């Protein structure tokens, strides 16, 4: 079965942090069942959602992700009993922090996907991909990567072409990954 590949103007990069016991197995099921879903998602497997540090999410955004998915076992199903419960609190707090500094939370999704829910995995990934696609690229963290301190001193005599965020460097950066 080959689904038709539609070429869009903008292909969002989605990074998915998943736990190995539920969501990874669910994604695997989707794959072995030959379900089709957008290939925009890069999956990173963790022993538990409890291991997914908020700094990983930041790192993903900094390195060019337009959307991030964190997914693990449903409450009560955690392989380590409570890893997902701890993660739930941590991410609730982290969302509030990101929101306070002005990050659009529509780019960040948390889900519970079990090993049996291949279909749900497909839905979650498809929905997030399409949502981010309509939002367009996420410029905020990438801009930070490009910027140098002194280059932000708008209105000063600093010549921006001489500082490190040159078009060449920008291009080199964009060509990575």
């Amino acid at each position: 079965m080959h689904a038709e590949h539609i070429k869009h103007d903008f292909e969002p990069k989605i990074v998915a942090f998943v736990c190995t016991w539920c969501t990874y197995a669910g994604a695997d099921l989707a794959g072995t069942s030959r379900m089709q879903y957008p290939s925009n998602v890069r999956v990173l497997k963790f022993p538990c959602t409890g291991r997914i540090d908020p700094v990983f999410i930041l790192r993903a955004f900094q390195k060019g992700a337009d959307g991030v998915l964190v997914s693990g076992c449903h409450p009560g199903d955690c392989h380590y009993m409570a890893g997902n419960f701890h993660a739930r609190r941590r991410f609730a707090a982290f969302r509030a922090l990101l929101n306070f500094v002005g990050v659009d939370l529509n780019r960040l999704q948390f889900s519970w996907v079990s090993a049996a829910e291949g279909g749900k995995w497909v839905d979650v990934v498809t929905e997030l991909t399409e949502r981010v696609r309509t939002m367009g690229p996420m410029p905020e963290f990438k801009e930070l990567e490009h910027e140098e301190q002194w280059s932000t001193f708008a209105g000063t005599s600093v010549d921006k072409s001489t500082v490190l965020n040159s078009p060449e460097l920008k291009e080199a950066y964009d060509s990575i990954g």
Partner: protein
Amino acid sequence: MNAKANKNQVTSIEPAYYQAITEAIRKEAVQILKDETVVGVVGYLPGRRKGTASPALVTTVEEAEKLIFSPACVNNLSVYLTKAKKGVLKQGKVGIVAKGCDMRALAGLMTESQLQREDLFIIGVVCPGVYGFGVERTGTVTEANIARKCRECTVHMPEGADVAAGTHAELADLTPEEAEEMARIEAMPQAERWAFWKEHFSRCIRCMACRQVCPFCYCEQCLCDKNRPQAVESSPRPAGNMAWHLVRAMHLAGRCGGCAECERVCPMDIPLNLLNRRMAQELKELYDFEAGLTPVEKGPLNEYKENDDQSFIK
């Protein structure tokens, strides 16, 4: 509250008030050193310049008689019982002078098993407020020169101390500047909030003073110093700065006692306490937790309830 209803609310707090606290601290410190309850007392001595104060560990009665409490006693001394200074506690029980906001740090450190209550003799200060940063130090504390955090202080009366020095007095009708500023940021459109924080964070020079002064940043290896793999870029550039501030705000969420020391020491004038307060507010709303005055079993991010809110998870 009706200001007239409370006769202890005044428009300026005179030096005599701090003098009374000073006397009480000296008396107590001398006593516990004499009867060998403690091996030393962490408190404040006069600074070298007029009108300043500096933290000190006094171990003799003569020194204890020089201890002071003045509006310049801004430091949160609990940081002297953590990190590199841990050795202090090995000598025996230690006395410490603590304002209400500093007591929160002590309680938090006990929660995290960094301190044992029985190792401490806490001289609580019934604190009317301290000078803000860069204000005129006129002798009396007024609405004009009091620290931002003191405007909305809820812990003038310390709880859980061994003794309390001073009597209650507080300034009347203070505008809660921090709460107003936080509401202002929250009301901004998202892009404006990003621009606001980006501008502030981009000035950060990564001196790490905010970390060093914080009683809760006692990690022997800070995540932000790790370079294999490097989680947070360590040079003062915008991307790493943003990550550093978000990581630290996350690490302090549910732990920070709100002493505002991080903000006070920041040479780049970054409003760090707004981040701390925002996180504290969020954890209060979500889990009804407040970094409090008494040690608890676990902080809000170290525990969970099965029925915690998960409306954000699909």
